[in-house]
């Protein structure tokens, strides 16, 4: 391990209230939960921050509930919780498909949906699902609560509108119309970070399509969606898609590969959900 433990400290609140108060008093505290990303940084010696706030014991944040028109998934719900949740399977089956492809069982048992959002990796596998599902992020500080559309949450590479004194409490997903679709392309099924990942909903009013690993953040594809909504052919829509995204070469893949595969995924989505 390259990181040192001795300069680090951990605050362990008993309740959500106490956690928010601690964060108000010291916004330099870094929230941690399942640590499946954070401890990788620690092991690499690239950990940001020295003071941490342990959210893991706040079991109330693991709740998955239907509240009126939305499915509310607590930020601390693990991917295992999501995979085994009947409510999630009924409401957003594509989220179950996505959760099953995150890491392996060991990571699914610890990784949380709130952590996937807070970590903000453009390759986060649950994120295109949330974008395609028009999800809302529920944020709270010690005094107020606010909701932000998931697609407005990220402001750039690993940056977001979350203020230092706020916690992500939950993600809210409205009822989905039309067939849902998820596909991750990586080097192997488990334990591989995406080369490209797509989630999409074939809403009768017009499809919603989101991609991960093609930009600094997870992106929706409004131009491609509009093309399909207008009734353009799938090949014409693929052309629009190719002009809409500008993926890059990196350690996992190349821009060329991603562009080609993004088009293929769009075709596959269109056929599978026809």
């Amino acid at each position, binding site marked *: *391990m390259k990181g040192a*433990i*001795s300069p*680090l*400290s*951990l605050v*362990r609140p008993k309740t959500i209230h106490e956690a928010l108060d601690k964060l108000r008093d010291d916004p330099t505290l870094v929230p*941690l939960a*399942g*640590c*499946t990303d954070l*401890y*990788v940084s*620690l*092991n*690499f010696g690239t950990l940001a921050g020295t003071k*941490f706030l*342990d959210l*893991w*014991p706040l*079991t109330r944040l*693991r709740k998955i509930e239907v509240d009126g028109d939305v499915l509310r998934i607590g930020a601390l719900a*693990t991917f*295992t*919780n999501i*995979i*085994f949740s009947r409510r999630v399977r009924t409401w957003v089956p594509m989220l179950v498909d996505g959760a099953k492809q995150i*890491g*392996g*069982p*060991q*990571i699914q*048992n*610890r990784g949380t949906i709130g952590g996937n959002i807070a970590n903000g990796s453009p390759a986060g596998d649950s994120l295109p699902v949330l974008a395609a599902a028009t999800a809302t992020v529920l944020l709270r500080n010690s005094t107020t609560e606010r909701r932000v559309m998931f697609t407005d949450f990220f402001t750039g590479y690993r940056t977001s509108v979350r203020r230092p004194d706020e916690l992500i409490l939950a993600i809210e997903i409205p009822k989905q119309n039309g067939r849902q679709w998820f596909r991750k392309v990586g080097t192997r*099924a*488990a*334990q591989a970070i995406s080369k490209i990942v797509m989630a999409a909903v074939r809403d009768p009013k017009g499809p919603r399509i989101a991609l991960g690993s093609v930009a600094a953040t997870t992106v929706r594809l409004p131009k491609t969606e509009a093309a399909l909504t207008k009734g353009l052919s799938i090949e014409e829509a693929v052309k629009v898609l190719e002009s809409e995204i500008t993926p890059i070469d990196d350690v996992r893949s190349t821009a060329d590969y991603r562009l080609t595969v993004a088009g293929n995924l769009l075709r596959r989505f269109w056929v599978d959900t026809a």
Partner: protein
Amino acid sequence: MKFTLNGAAVDVQAHPMKRLLDVLREELNLTGTKEGCGEGECGACTVLVDGAPVCACLIPFAQTEGTSVTTIEGLGEDHPLQHAFMDEVGAQCGICTPGMILATIALGDNPSLAQIKEGLAGNLCRCTGYEAIYRAIAKANTGKKSGTRLGTLGVKNRRATDKRKPARPSGSKKRP
């Protein structure tokens, strides 16, 4: 910090951010849990926390408070899976083996080949090519007497991670 380790109540003092892996190896001398990659990719450091397999390299020690932790030492030295791994040469260098065995235990009794492959997807082996491992697990399951459960270590499988109730005492002496 109080928790249950291989069936026994323990109280261990260590830095709250220390990796569970290091606490096990350095404070408790339980060196059966191996460090492979240190980034959650290889599964060599797999232990069971409340019956669920997790990577001990990615867990701050503080988060084990009140849980039940099972390491490979908790199986004793005569567990049917251990014998099957030896008999079928499911272990060569041995670094992945403790993690493989613990991840298998979390699958409960008589997993199908598909369930085994999925359940061990987070455990990498660079020696055996996996076939011998799958054979060993199949053999351990068919070789046991009826009524004997491989999963006698407090495994509530998937849901257990999130309920903080202590699992059944582990380190069971029940043997085929």
